[in-house]
């Protein structure tokens, strides 16, 4: 199996994700340049964080129109795993692979801090190593992470159980004081209807090494790799 990390001009976390997949988990991993017309037969495609093209219009807007994103869309439509982190989440929303939009943080400032995330789904390829209700410690680092959707759209997301992570207090309670960017319904991560495209604002790749304080994020990558291996077994 093979992992791909989308490399857009201005993405900053590409090498961080690459490091986890390649060196921590020992997976074959390649970079997918923004002009790529394909995802080069990757099984898992990660759209990393950063400031693609400077994020000068709306976060993710310019990147969402780059050639490689078309390839990512085809990969997703075919059921392939896609993970969008931070700017990657914004890009997936702008590209229409995920619903909603990420508006300016409530504070109108860049927010960098370790946050508590409550796990809402533990049955996805990405989250099978978590327990529903488990509280993770993973850093956020963004200016535009304030998730927005129309009430109807939000209800639909909830009904379909497509909210995967919420900002919470250390004991897992939903409390506005812990909803750092003011996201609607404290949404920190959502998944598409197919369950194969996950977008999240927090940075699991920054919580994948004990030396850096938390390994809560590593389990997400492990889970994805593990479930891919299984499905490849089945395919054989």
């Amino acid at each position, binding site marked *: 199996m093979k992992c791909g990390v989308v490399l857009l001009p201005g993405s900053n976390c590409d090498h961080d994700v690459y490091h986890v997949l390649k060196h921590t988990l020992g997976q074959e991993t390649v970079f997918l340049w923004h002009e790529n017309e394909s995802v080069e037969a990757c099984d898992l495609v990660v759209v990393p964080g950063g400031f693609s093209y400077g994020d000068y219009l709306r976060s993710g807007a*310019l990147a969402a129109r780059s050639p490689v994103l078309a390839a990512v869309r085809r990969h997703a439509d075919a059921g392939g795993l896609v993970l969008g982190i931070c700017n990657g989440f914004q890009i997936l929303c702008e590209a229409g692979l995920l619903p909603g939009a990420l508006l300016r943080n409530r504070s109108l400032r860049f927010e960098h801090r370790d946050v508590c995330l409550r796990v809402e789904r533990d049955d996805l390829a990405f989250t099978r190593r978590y327990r529903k209700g488990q509280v993770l410690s993973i850093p956020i680092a963004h200016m535009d992470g304030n998730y927005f959707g129309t009430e109807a759209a939000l209800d639909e997301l909830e009904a379909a159980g497509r909210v995967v992570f919420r900002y919470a207090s250390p004991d897992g309670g939903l409390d506005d004081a812990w909803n750092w960017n003011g996201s609607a319904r404290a949404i920190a991560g959502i998944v598409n209807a197919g369950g194969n495209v996950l977008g999240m604002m927090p940075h699991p790749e920054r919580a994948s090494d004990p030396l850096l304080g938390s390994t809560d994020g590593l389990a997400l990558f492990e889970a994805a790799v593990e479930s891919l291996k299984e499905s490849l077994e089945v395919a054989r």
Partner: protein
Amino acid sequence: MKARVTVFPRPEVLDPQGKAIKGALERLGFTAVSDLRAGKSFDLELTTADRGEAERQLKEMCEKLLANTLVERYEIELPAEGWR
């Protein structure tokens, strides 16, 4: 031909920037502002001289890139003559 595109958050979308600016104006003593929305604007110089063609292209630019129609609405202005 010159053109101006203006993009604003939809009325139903909260506009924290606008709110903050309104608050700041009030602190500065500008109490006569009852509402303020913060948006973006783009001044473009187009090579085409055909109004209709320009209009069509600008609309497409807005739909495809300049505005996120889920949360934003846009306006296109093609003033008869250049800017004051």
